[in-house]
């Protein structure tokens, strides 16, 4: 093992540790409502979802647009399982306190004590959300995965919309609170907690991509017929990729719920899927590092750095054209430029260590984007 510790691995490890240390420093130095921490948290969530989408669209070549629907499932599961019992009556005020009468963080804090318990409970809720999403993806996949390219895209988009309508149905109110907000559930921690959590999930995806399964996925992407001729079971591997990707989208949805503090089915529109897809494209279809870096760049610019474009003054320049919506307009123009003229995105299909390989002179673009 030690022999494999070459230069690029070391640099990558150093960068990742620096990011983690930076997150701890942020948590220690700034109050939790500070914009920098918010940005890191949201960018982490988007990274995870973007990577999960990349696993499907970039590595397996299945063009699915169901991400928002899967995130919705994860988000609702997390929220429903984590609202404290005492607050349920208030949240489910129109549905008599709802039918779920327990809260995982409280259950676990009863067993494991007040410090670890809630965290374990929240993690369990996230994972259960992922599993429910994966189960749902299995069922959706049965009919949908037989479809090709754009039909698959539109069918998954359709399922996401159906899920959204379903969750707003009043008859499900005792469980989902109908079209009302779910709120008052706990958040797992600060920026560092998000980075660690998302880092672990992305590491799992990375291991998967580098395994035989990952190589089978890529073979399917490159040429279905050739892959099948090489003995890869197409149906099985496509289903697997779809389920795994959805699992992580569900977990990502749960974390989004955590970050936002409230959940409402209305917000999981297809626009959200498009946004994530565009992040994946900008980062480079088939590059996990690209998805992560772009998520951070995208969220940081939108939520923080480009704020001035909306409020009148940007980089010291004031102009009447800097009014509400200008930053989104600028960002979407940049996106279109990337889509049309830099089709490989920021990273192409390279990963972080590839940037530091001695022979290839690569620019240092990734790394400390945060």
């Amino acid at each position, binding site marked *: 093992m030690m022999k494999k510790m070459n230069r690029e691995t070391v640099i990558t490890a150093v960068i990742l540790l620096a990011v983690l240390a930076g997150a701890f420093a942020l948590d220690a130095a700034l109050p939790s409502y500070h914009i920098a921490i918010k940005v890191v948290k949201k960018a982490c969530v988007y990274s995870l979802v973007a990577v999960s989408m990349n696993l499907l669209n970039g590595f397996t070549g299945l063009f699915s647009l169901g991400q928002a629907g899967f995130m919705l499932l994860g988000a609702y599961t997390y929220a429903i399982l984590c609202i404290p019992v005492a607050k349920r009556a208030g949240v489910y005020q129109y549905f008599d306190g709802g039918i779920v009468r327990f809260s995982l963080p409280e259950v676990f804090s009863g067993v494991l004590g007040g410090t670890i318990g809630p965290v374990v409970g929240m993690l369990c809720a996230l994972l259960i959300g992922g599993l429910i999403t994966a189960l749902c993806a299995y069922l959706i996949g049965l*009919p949908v995965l037989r479809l090709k390219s754009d039909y698959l895209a539109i069918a998954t988009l359709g399922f996401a*919309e159906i899920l959204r309508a379903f969750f707003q149905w009043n008859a499900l109110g005792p469980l989902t609170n109908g079209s009302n907000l779910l709120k008052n559930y706990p958040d797992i921690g600060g920026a560092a907690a998000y980075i660690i959590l998302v880092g672990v999930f992305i590491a799992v995806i990375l291991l998967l991509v580098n395994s035989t399964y990952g190589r089978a996925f890529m073979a399917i992407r490159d040429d279905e017929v050739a892959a099948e001729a090489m003995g890869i079971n197409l149906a099985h591997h496509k289903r697997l990729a779809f389920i795994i990707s959805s699992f992580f989208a569900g977990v990502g949805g749960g974390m989004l719920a955590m970050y936002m503090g409230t959940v409402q089915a209305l917000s999981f529109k297809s626009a959200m899927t498009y946004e994530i897809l565009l992040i994946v*494209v900008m980062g480079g279809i088939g590059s996990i590092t690209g998805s992560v870096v772009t998520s951070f760049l995208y969220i940081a610019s939108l939520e923080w750095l480009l704020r001035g474009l909306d409020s009148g003054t940007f980089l010291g320049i004031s102009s009447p054209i800097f009014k509400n919506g200008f930053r989104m307009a600028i960002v979407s123009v940049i996106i279109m430029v990337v889509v049309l003229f830099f089709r490989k995105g920021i990273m192409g299909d390279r990963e972080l260590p590839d940037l530091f390989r001695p022979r290839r002179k690569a620019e240092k673009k990734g790394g400390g984007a945060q």
Partner: protein
Amino acid sequence: MQGLLPYLINGISVGGQYALIAIGYTLVYGILRLINFAHGDVFMVAGLIMVYSSASMPIYFSIPLVLILTVVLGFTIERMAYKPLRTAPRMSLMISAIGVSYLIQNLAFYFTGGLPQPVTNPIPWISENVTVFGESTKRVTLVTPVLTALLVVALVYFINHTKIGMGMRAVSKDFEIAQLMGIKINGVISMTFVVGSFLAAVGSMLYFTNYPSVAITSGGMPGLKAFVAAVFGGIGSIPGAVVGAFLIGISEELIKGLGYSTFSDAFTFALLIIVLCVRPTGLFGEKVTDKV
């Protein structure tokens, strides 16, 4: 049954409006094999232009202006966002379409300030109330199916009996062979977008007459539903798109009439998935086989 009659009438009207949008999808898909995700947003922009132009000029200027600007928009989108990707994989084209949709929505947000623009009776004649079978409704409900039928007949004539229509048919059969036969495919593709946007503009003027305001997201749902209609009817087929749109419009309104409004959208997508799984070529679609 009497209670459902207004919904049925409404459904026919909504169906006609979907049909006008669906034709745009089906034409473009027939030729470029592209789901033009931006089409719903073109439809929304047409609505916005209508709101702005009808507020500042008389109706006989504003209607042509809406049509012209929407056509120009459709043409520009094709030239800017799809033409550079002619040789790229189909997925790049689709991503570009999604990007365009995102761009249009954000630009619209910027120009409208993010506020839904109220529709204040832009075309007075079609918003007047009339009585049909004892039910009061707006005249637009009656005008839509008739206008849709006329436009579809004109379009079918255009496609079957003019030179450029013949070009469109040739390009949709085989892109490269058509090019070899001397058809200027860029012109034909642009024409497709022009026709599609024109019909979307007409549909938009009719559609938004029934709504209090045009928001930047207003295009999304009708766009997706019209797309479903196009798939349902067999994508690439004009009669298919029209029949599909009317069926979807009517079923949707009937579902609302039965008191399941939450599911009227979900129904459309459920229909889509059933159609895709049972008969992916739709009602009138041609069977396509994949070549290795």
